[in-house]
Structure formats: structure tokens, C-alpha cells
């Protein structure tokens, strides 16, 4: 078994940040050896002789690999936008070691064999753990429960009709009651269809000036309020996807204060952009929920910092260039995000490293029950790690994803992923384009 020595990084351990040499062996972290500051020290001195490869991490932060509990990998069914191989490569390039693949594929992931196909395909590609989310309703029809037991047996722990909302409160209650005993989390794309129907962007000043039908913030808030009451009633774990407005943050804060098993995520693009950007009518700013006014973005940043919102999640939603290069109202919703998420969150929050890795790795791993990920670095943990240049500024261009519909193109961000390690293997190295071609391997 090959051994990799990660030398001299600032390592995020259970006891805080420690300058240390980290040895990866057999897919695990084999050793964490603090570096004594001294004159004339050689990189990874003692260990280097044994390791097959030494990577100098001096000046970098080494933390648990990022976990995205919300990505659209588009396979099966829409492989011209993305597939599990290209999506995994994009994830690795973003420092991710695990990705929860949303079930609105074609066919939708509403039964066990479909979920197994996705996780198996992820293992074949071997760049990140691809954890399938399962539908709440069969065929995303919003009317009949999906094969929840089968999905659970296939390893699914996140259940969602993402892209659609489970609008029927009675149906959602049954799903919650059913899963409460079983386990797993109900993740809701909270958008009241009656309030959002026909809308393309945030309902407010900008949409009114452009004459576009809007999606009010209220469309999210009314569903969140209702669902939080149902979660309280049933005791089921409930997760609100891509929170977009301050009012929803207030509801989550109140529910958490009561001790409800509630979690929430926010996307990097909702932290950085607002409906003022959508005023350009450039479809690269079109996604659901829509970009809200700047005050909402500020509230979201604060909520993520505080932990009212537990995790950042990308809602990586690739679309082919020709699909997005149309008028705003005719464009499909969604933007890519895997490769910019770390830098975008780092830039928006300006957090300390521990806080960032908590929001992008530890918390999402817990929500998605991805127990091989999101662990502070110590001997014995699976070697799912990311090394980042904390203060490096860079301008976004070029993607490993098959699609490039990112509002971050051309933006200058702080913080850059340098290396990603999945199950002890180097899966991404900045500047080494070879690592962008996914290798097909057997299960580790």
C-alpha cells in the first residue's frame, strides 16, 4: 500500500490547528506528527524515507475534505450537462471528497436499484464518494411516496424532491412519520408553487422594473414555517435546502431554540450575489430560489457564521452553454458551484479555517450521515482531506465540470484548493491537469 507524506501543513485536528506532518497509508490517516519549529529542518524529515510521495503543504491548511450535500450530477439522463465522472472531477477540484447527488435525474432516483447505480458509478470513477439522495415521492410526482425502505437499504440518507417542493402537507407528514422511525433526513426545496408560479427572479424592485413575474421570499418562508411545524409534530429530521432570505433564517433560529431536529444549508452564490446582479438579465444569475436583495445576502452570511445555517451546499446545477445562452425567462434555472464553493464561502465569511471546515465538511457530513467524511484529522480516520491556500487570490476561469454556467466566472476570490485526497489517494492537484481526467478504478 502506497504511503503519502503531507509535510508541514497547518493541520485541523480535534485539538485545534497544529503544524504537523500527516502520513496517509491504507486509505487512512496513519500518523499526525507535530512539527517542532527548529532551524534547518528538512521537510518531513524522519518519515520521508518511508513514503512513496512527499507533498510539501507548508503555508497550506489541511482539513477534512469538503462535503456537498446538494449537487446535481445529471446522470442518468442528462449527461450532456454533466455526468458522474465529470461531476466527480469537478468535486475533487473543489476540495470535495463526498457529494450527495440530487435525485431529479431521468429517471428520478426513487427506488433502490437507481440509487445503487449512482453510488456504484461513483465508486467506479473513484474521485469522491457519490451518495445518492432519494426522492420523497415516486417519479417526483408529488403525490405518492417513493420506495423509501428500498432507498434506505441502498444507503440513501437524504430524501428530497429537490427542484420540486413537496407541496402537499399531508404527504410530507406521512414521509416524515415513515422516515422518523427509519432514519435519514427530509430535505425540502421550500417554494410554495402558488406563490412562485411563473416567476423567474426575486419578486421586488428589480423584477417590477423588468416586467418579470417574481418569486417572493414569502414562497420560501410559508413552506418553511409549515414544514417546521410538521417536523416538530413528527420528530423527523428536517433540512431546509438553499435558504435564500432573512425571514427563513429567523424561522430556523426559532425552531432550533425549541430544540427541533432542524438543519439548513445556503449556497455560495446566495452569499455573494443579489437580485441587483439579475438586473442584467444574464441567465448566469438565474437559479431557484432566486438571488434576493443585498440585505438577505448579509443575513445569510451572518446566519452561516453563527451556525443558524449549518452548512454551505453548492446546488451545483450544470447546464450546457447553448441551454443558458437564451433570454433570461427562457433559460433553465441553476448555476454550477463545486469548483468555486470553498473560495466563495471563504471570501464571503472571512472565517477562521476551523469555522469554514465546520460549515463545509463537519456539519454537512453529519447531515448527510457521511461518516467517512467531515472528521478532524487524527490517526485512524479515513483519509478524506483537502489542502487549501487560505489567502491565495485567484480569478475564476476554466472548469473540470462539463458545464461552465457559473456566476463566479471572472470574479476574484480568496482561498484556493491545492490538493484533494480521497480515501488516501490524491484526486486533485492544482495545476496538474492530468488529475482532472477521472481515473476509473475499482472500489477502494
Amino acid at each position, binding site marked *: 500500500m502506497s504511503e503519502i507524506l503531507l509535510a508541514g501543513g497547518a493541520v485541523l485536528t480535534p485539538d485545534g490547528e497544529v503544524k504537523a506532518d500527516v502520513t496517509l497509508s491504507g486509505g487512512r490517516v496513519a500518523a499526525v506528527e507535530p512539527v517542532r519549529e527548529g532551524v534547518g529542518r528538512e521537510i518531513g524529515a524522519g518519515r520521508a524515507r518511508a513514503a512513496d510521495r512527499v507533498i510539501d503543504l507548508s503555508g497550506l491548511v489541511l482539513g477534512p475534505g469538503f462535503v456537498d450535500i446538494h449537487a446535481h450530477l445529471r446522470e442518468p439522463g442528462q449527461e450532456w450537462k454533466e455526468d458522474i465522472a465529470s461531476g466527480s472531477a469537478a468535486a475533487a477540484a473543489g476540495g470535495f471528497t463526498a457529494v450527495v447527488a440530487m435525485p431529479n435525474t431521468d429517471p428520478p432516483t426513487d427506488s433502490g436499484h437507481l440509487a445503487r447505480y449512482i453510488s456504484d458509478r461513483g465508486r467506479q470513477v473513484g474521485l469522491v464518494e457519490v451518495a445518492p439522495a432519494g426522492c420523497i415521492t415516486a417519479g417526483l410526482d408529488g403525490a405518492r411516496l417513493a420506495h423509501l425502505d428500498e432507498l434506505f437499504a441502498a444507503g440513501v440518507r437524504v430524501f428530497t424532491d429537490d427542484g420540486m417542493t413537496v407541496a402537499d402537507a399531508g404527504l410530507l407528514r406521512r414521509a416524515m412519520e415513515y422516515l422518523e422511525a427509519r432514519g435519514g433526513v427530509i430535505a425540502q426545496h421550500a417554494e410554495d408553487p402558488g406563490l412562485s408560479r411563473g416567476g423567474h427572479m426575486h419578486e421586488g424592485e428589480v423584477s417590477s*422594473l423588468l416586467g418579470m413575474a417574481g418569486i417572493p421570499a414569502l414562497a420560501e418562508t410559508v413552506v418553511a414555517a409549515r414544514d417546521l411545524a410538521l417536523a416538530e409534530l413528527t420528530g423527523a429530521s428536517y433540512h431546509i435546502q438553499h435558504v435564500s432570505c432573512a425571514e427563513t433564517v429567523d424561522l430556523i433560529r426559532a425552531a432550533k431554540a425549541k430544540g427541533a431536529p432542524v438543519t439548513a444549508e445556503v449556497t455560495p452564490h446566495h452569499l455573494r450575489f443579489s437580485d441587483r446582479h439579475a438586473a442584467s438579465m444574464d441567465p448566469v444569475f438565474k437559479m431557484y430560489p432566486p438571488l434576493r436583495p443585498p440585505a438577505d445576502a448579509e443575513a445569510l452570511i451572518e446566519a452561516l457564521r453563527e451556525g443558524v445555517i449549518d452548512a454551505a451546499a453548492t446546488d451545483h446545477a450544470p447546464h450546457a452553454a447553448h441551454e443558458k445562452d437564451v*433570454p433570461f425567462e427562457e433559460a433553465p434555472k441553476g448555476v454550477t458551484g463545486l469548483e468555486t464553493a470553498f473560495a466563495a464561502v471563504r471570501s464571503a465569511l472571512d472565517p477562521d479555517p476551523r469555522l469554514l471546515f465546520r460549515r463545509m465538511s463537519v456539519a454537512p457530513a453529519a447531515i448527510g450521515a457521511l461518516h467517512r467524511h467531515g472528521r478532524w484529522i487524527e490517526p485512524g480516520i479515513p483519509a478524506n482531506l483537502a489542502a487549501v491556500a487560505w489567502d491565495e487570490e485567484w480569478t475564476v476561469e476554466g472548469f473540470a465540470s462539463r458545464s461552465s454556467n457559473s456566476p463566479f466566472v471572472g470574479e476574484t476570490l480568496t482561498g484556493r484548493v491545492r490538493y484533494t485526497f480521497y480515501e488516501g489517494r490524491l484526486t486533485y492537484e492544482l495545476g496538474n491537469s492530468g488529475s482532472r481526467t477521472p481515473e476509473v478504478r475499482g472500489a477502494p
Partner: protein
Amino acid sequence: MSFLTTRGVPRKDLEELLDSADEFNRVLARPIPKVPALQGKLVANLFFEDSTRTRLSFERAARALSADVMNFSAAGSSAAKGESLKDTALTIRALGADLMVVRHKAAGAPRRIAAWTGRPVVNAGDGAHQHPTQGMLDALTLRQRFGGLDGLRVAIVGDIRHSRVARSNVFAFTALGAGVTLVAPRTLQPVSTGGWPVDATDDLDGVLGEVDVVYLLRIQAERGGLSVFPSLPEYVSRYGMTRDRFDRLPAEAVVLHPGPMNRGVEIDDAVAGHPRALVLDQVANGVAVRMAVLFRLLGGSG
């Protein structure tokens, strides 16, 4: 350069355009109403949404400037075969179009086409966003009637929320000095009037005595499958320009309508035919305004 919106256009530029339109009105009054200003230029009318009067008006304007005209309409075209808007636009450019007049149901489509093709584009109506030549022809009609728009009190009545005409008129009229009140039930008002230099009310009868201009918008009971008010008779009872309401207007007040009119709905038959209903003046001014716009964008470039 393109003409995509009236919002944010300086007063001076609007006035120059109206002055130019006045000149073209004089041309149109000549025995041979035609000038060779745009000889050899090719104007393409790209109408992805049904329109008769606007397309005819642009066509008439282009021909009166001696430009060649190419008409494209979405029905039975490549668009119906699944061609993308971008490919259609690039094809029209490759056919030699010097300028494109674009109507499309999606807001921002003309702006996209201008960016894709690098050719000047005149927005002939994009979704509920803008229809700037309509705003200018209405401004011209009011300037002819009143000498100027400064201090003029204008009520725009009807489905403002879904109206590109209202958006064009609000910003053209107010930039030229008029005061605008939006009159409609709440469901037809813009959700937000932030950035709109207007007043708003749901009480037409309350403003009738204090306006110089009533601008009536076309009413459709169904908008994209959404019912926006309970019934047409109910709308007429509160917002229809009946003969009775017309009689309560100040003696010099005028009524405008962008057409096509729903007689008996937003406008009573007797009002539509009244000399102080300027609907046909608007249509005639449309040609002059569009000549002015085409000349501005294509003239002087050789």
C-alpha cells in the same frame, strides 16, 4: 448603439428624438413621403410574437427612409423547427441585416440579440419590460397636443403590472417633465414601484377631475392562466373609460390607447371615436418616431 428602453435615457436625448420625429412628420406630409436617407440599408423585422400594427409601422418607417426591409415572423419559421434564438439572429445578420427590430415574449431578448450580433437593435416589445418606440410616439402625441409634457398630469390606467407600454411611458413621460399616476387594482399594479417616479391609486374616479391625459391599457382577463381580477364587467365598472367618466374629465383632457382597443371594455365606443381620443394620431406618429429611431441608429454611418 441600440434603442432598448426609455428608462435612464436623458431628457435631452428624448427631446432630440422627438424633434427628429417632427421633421419626419413633415416628410410624411409631402406629396412624395420618402427620403433616401437609408438607401442600401437592410432593416430586418424579427417578430417572435404576433404583431400587425407595430410591424407595419416599422416597415412603413424603414421604407419611407428608402431602406430595404426583411420580415421574419416566428410562426412557420425556423423557430418553430427548434432553432435557437441566437442561431436565428446570427442567420439574419449573415443575410446582411444592418439593424434588427425585435419583438419577443421574453424580457431582455432584444438586448441578447444586440450582444450576439453586434448590430443595432430596436426593441419593439420584450415581454412586459419595454416598448420604447411606443413610449416615444405617445410622448410625441402629447407634445403635439399640449406643446410639451412639463407639468402634464397623466393617469395610466389598467394592467400596468404586465404592460411594457406602461414601463416605457412612465420613464419617457416623467423624464420629459410629466407627472404620472398609475391607476389599477392592486393585482394589476407593479409589485414594487421602487425606482418608479410615480404615484399609484386604485381609484380612477378619484383622479378623473385632476388629469390632462388618461392613458388606457389593453385589458386581458387572463394573463398566463392567472386570473388577475374577478370579471370583465367588474373591471369595467371601476376602471372602464365610459362616456360618463369621460364627461367628468377636464375639458381639455385627452384619452390615449396603444391599440388594439377592446371597445366596451377599457374604452367605451363613444369615447374611442371622440376627437379628444388621440388613438389615430398615435398610430400616425408611430411612423415618424420609428423613422427618427432608425435614422438615429443607421444614418450617418455611410
